[in-house]
């Protein structure tokens, strides 16, 4: 047991939820609360088990840690190859935090097919964690796609009125991107075999491959498209508002909190280091799309009259900023982007959660159905306000640090104007978020039916409070997080620079 936890911690983390899901299969259908409690217990256990990752993570070691490698399809050199660096560490922890939060929130709100819901959620967690720790491209792809199915069900079964359209759109959009990536992965492995005579899908082996200009461009685009859809980057974002809006609250939390991050993560982990040359050439596009995302997302968010849709578009805007930071590719902007992913997960997760609190009571997400309810639900209001402030980057909370690093880092890159344009998000985010707060919580109390609203319940409160505490913590002590990000970012930059340099000396550029 101890060996299992010390040497195979990642595997335990990845597969524990699935094991839990498997056990849930044997719960009788009527054992609703048992299933709920069990799922929460599993996710909390998962969280507890993931904490050693944070403490045992070696800050001085730049590469991957907690490695495990077992042959899987040996004929093709595909292996179960997992590891963790600073970038994935944080996202893994974000996942293990947000999953119990979502389940906890759902405790009192999901009534339909509770067992299946819990089961799907746990499978989803496996998918997310797996994609985050996979260091083998085939393995990554498997986990990456496995995530889709549970999320499809979560949106489709427990979602809102337009859930069918939304779930289908979500699935098709994501699939469209990842299928091309699938071909690209295969192609690279084949190239590796042709070059070395050995089959391998291992990331570290494929890093060493060099492609000529056009091939690299195509491969890069295949990868980038998959990730851009997931992020989502304008104009590939339209699945997101639908999916976020129609998903049940817990689904929205996970979607916004983790799934979107996987796009950025994938880009950092795969697209960028594998094809640094193409990535460098396309970085301007990335930056421009990021800028468009920031401004466009904010503008469209302002036009929404559905709370969840508004928050969803705010994600487009926020993720746009993250994309800018990656496009700029400075140490600061990269670190900021990674941090901002976590921040966005926390703040948007909290926003969705709190919108969910209202939705579950009033069964409408229309902003105009509310108004002036701050006096009725003061605690919810306060939490929502804090999440809002985190989202709009108020210093002292987490959002600011990320934004500041991204923008400052971008400013110091050659693309100064991205920062200038991206920083307008500071204004626009305040516009739409505060308008939302005003129209929902403030303003005169008009709708009598809101009198019956009850304030946040303990289970919901705990879920939200966890997020708020983390927001404050990161806002006050960002270095705790940044120290873990920083070495990995530097390593990434070094690797990219080295590959670019070798490509230059070889004259591989067309």
């Amino acid at each position, binding site marked *: 047991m101890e060996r299992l936890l010390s040497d195979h911690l990642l595997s335990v983390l990845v597969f524990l939820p699935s094991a839990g899901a498997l056990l849930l299969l044997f719960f009788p259908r009527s054992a609703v609360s048992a299933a709920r409690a069990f799922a929460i217990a599993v996710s909390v256990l998962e969280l507890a088990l993931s904490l050693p990752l944070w403490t045992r993570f070696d800050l001085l070691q730049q590469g991957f840690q907690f490695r495990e490698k077992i042959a899987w399809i040996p004929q093709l050199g595909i292996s179960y190859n997992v590891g963790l660096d600073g970038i994935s560490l944080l996202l893994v922890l974000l996942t293990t935090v947000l999953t119990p939060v979502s389940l906890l929130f759902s405790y009192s709100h999901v009534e339909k097919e509770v067992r299946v819901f819990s089961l799907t959620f746990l499978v989803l967690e496996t998918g997310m964690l797996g994609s985050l720790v996979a260091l083998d491209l085939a393995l990554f792809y498997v986990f990456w796609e496995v995530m889709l199915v549970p999320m499809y069900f979560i949106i489709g079964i427990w979602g809102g009125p337009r859930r069918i359209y939304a779930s289908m759109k979500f699935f098709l959009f994501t699939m469209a991107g990842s299928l091309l990536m699938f071909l690209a992965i295969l192609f690279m492995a084949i190239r590796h075999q042709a070059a070395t005579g050995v089959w391998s899908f291992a990331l570290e082996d494929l890093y060493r491959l060099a492609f000529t200009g056009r091939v690299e461009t195509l491969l890069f685009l295949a990868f980038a498209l998959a990730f851009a859809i997931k992020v989502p980057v304008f104009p590939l974002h339209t699945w997101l508002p639908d999916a976020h809006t129609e998903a049940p609250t817990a689904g929205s939390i996970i979607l916004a909190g983790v799934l979107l991050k996987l796009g950025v993560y994938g880009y950092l982990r795969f697209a960028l280091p594998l094809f640094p040359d193409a990535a460098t050439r396309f970085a301007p596009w990335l930056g421009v799309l990021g800028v468009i995302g920031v401004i466009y997302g904010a503008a469209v968010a302002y*036009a929404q009259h559905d709370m969840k849709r508004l928050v969803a578009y705010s994600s487009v805007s926020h993720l746009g900023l993250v994309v800018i930071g990656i496009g700029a590719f400075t140490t600061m902007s990269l670190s900021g982007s990674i941090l901002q992913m976590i921040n966005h997960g926390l703040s948007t997760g909290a926003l969705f959660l709190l919108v969910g609190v209202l939705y579950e009571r009033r069964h409408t997400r229309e902003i105009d159905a509310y108004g002036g309810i701050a006096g009725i639900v003061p605690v919810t209001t306060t939490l929502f306000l804090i999440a809002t402030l985190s989202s709009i980057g108020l210093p002292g909370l987490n959002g*600011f640090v990320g934004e500041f690093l991204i923008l400052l880092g971008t400013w110091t890159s050659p693309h100064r104007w991205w920062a200038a344009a991206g920083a307008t998000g500071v204004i626009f985010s305040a516009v739409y978020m505060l308008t939302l707060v005003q129209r929902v919580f403030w303003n005169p109390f008009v709708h009598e039916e809101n009198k019956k609203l009850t304030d946040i319940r303990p289970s919901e409160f705990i879920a939200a409070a966890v997020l708020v505490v983390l927001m404050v913590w990161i806002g006050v002590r960002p270095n705790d997080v940044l120290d873990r990000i920083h070495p990995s970012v530097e390593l990434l930059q070094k690797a990219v620079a080295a590959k670019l340099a070798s490509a230059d000396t070889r004259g591989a550029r067309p």
Partner: protein
Amino acid sequence: MTLPLWVLPVIPLVGFAINGLLGTRLRKSFVTAVGCGAAGLVTLAAYSRLIPFTSGDHSTVIEPVVSWIAVGNLSIDLSFRLDPLSALMLSFVTLVGLLIHIYAIGYMHHESTDAGYARFFAYLNLFLFAMLTLVLAESFPLMFVGWEGVGLCSYLLVGYYFDREYAAAAGRKAFVVNRIGDYGFLLGMFGVFATFGSLNYSEVFKKAAEQPAAFSPALAAICLCLFMGAVGKSAQVPLYVWLPDAMAGPTPVSALIHAATMVTAGVYMVTRCNVLFRLAPEVMLFVAVIGCFTALFAGTIAVAQNDLKKILAYSTISQLGYMFLACGVGAFTVGMFHVMTHACFKACLFLGAGSVMHAMSDDLDIRHMGGLKAKMPITYWTFLAATLAISGIPPFAGFFSKDAILASSFEAPGLGKLLWFVGLFTAGLTAFYMFRIVSLTFFGQFRGTKEQAHHVHEAPASMTMPLVVLGLLSLVAGWLGLPAVFGEHANVIEPFLAPIISPIAGHDAAHEALPHATEWLLMAVSVAVAASGLYLAYQWYAKQGGRAPARLAASFPGAYALVADKFRIDELYDVLFVRPYAWLARTLWKVVDVLIIDGILNASAFLVELVGDFLRFLQTGNVRNYALTFFLGLIALLLFVVGAI
């Protein structure tokens, strides 16, 4: 043993935490104790540092606490700085803050529920925390923490009556407009970092001062950006529009945040960065012009308003304009001096207004008041003192600071004389509209309803005590900065603040002081202008009951309406920005998202389905057709493969 500086912001933060987290369950008295206790404690703590500091050599103290953000070559520490500038700010922020906390006990007592009361004090404490952070910060980002923090508190407190739509909207407006300024501030910070490689004041200013030539090209843009932040925070044209609306908040808030402290943060920041600004003379000129124009513009508007707090708000904007004028002409210390005096008299005015409002059952229309002098003597006398101070009547505080500003502009090269003249005119306006308030409020007959008349009474002690203190300060605060004509060492504040204007290599700071005669003359002129403004207002409003101005307004209806409508700037912004943005947002959503992107996607999905639906009917059910397709397929294959042989 001296108290570390970081303790200062932490004290109110603790107060905030207690009241904020537990406030709803605490009794009002406990909330009061925590809220005011924190304010008192922080004032004590601040003076425990200030007194040794002012009596010592007042050299800059920097106290780093802990690293906050460290990535790559960026390293931001949580470190605090005590130098004359922050000391000055500290002195009145804590003091005025304390007074207003005390005032709020009385003011807020029946204004709100228990929960609201706790919330109010929690926010006030949070504000103190943010303001102290802003003032004591040693780096731009940390200052930004405070900067945004005070903005947040302003937002929260303006929207304190959240169930009133205008209050909620005003809070949002305040925040958003501030954010526009903050955008500039952020870019300015980025520029600073890109240029100097650091965001710490000491490093940045040292580098700038030592190698001005190396950095000055970038500085114009940087300073412009930073100034944009200041414009937002200190409500200058064109970003002043939030401040009048912000009067929707409780009056103590208006006094503390929107008059005495927060709004002066912009001036503080510009002064703080004086090294940078001085290296960008064009921006300095811009600052001066903006300040001067704002002073005049807001003063003009104030003349035609009837809402007591609104007038005071425009007056605040106008006074802030003076401060920027001072900064713009290079008289940073003078600007800061005015910040300080203004804090005293404007806080006093607002609190007086609050007292009146209290008595008038929240009616703020000065046309409904009148003759309150008798019923509210303390309020009257303190209000009068502050009015005289703001009008620039010697020996009240405002006279010295304002006169110093005018003098500085007068001696400034270039546009200096013009700026002086406009400033002078504005001073007259100020005196006029301020005494218009006094006349309409305290003199003459009561014009309100019977109930109001019955209700009018002097405020409780907790409210009058701060009034008295501030009224006194309005009188004496200016004596710290007597003009040079009163003697070589009459001016205490100038030499105290002098170290913050650090010398720049290659720039000689010394300039010829004005001849005493000129100075006397200028003083006389400004006093005369102020006095005539006072007199006119007294005559028109107190003596003649407002007939003359009404006639005047009637003879220029268009102009009057324009001024009374605040030049319809809000409406202009609405047409120029707010509506187009809303339209754009809707259009982007409905057209780009729904119509174009989703349209293309849904259409292609639909097209595929359509093709499927069409092809479906090729499956006719007639087996002959099946045989035929089979055979045609075979023929195609044959033609392709065999035909080629």
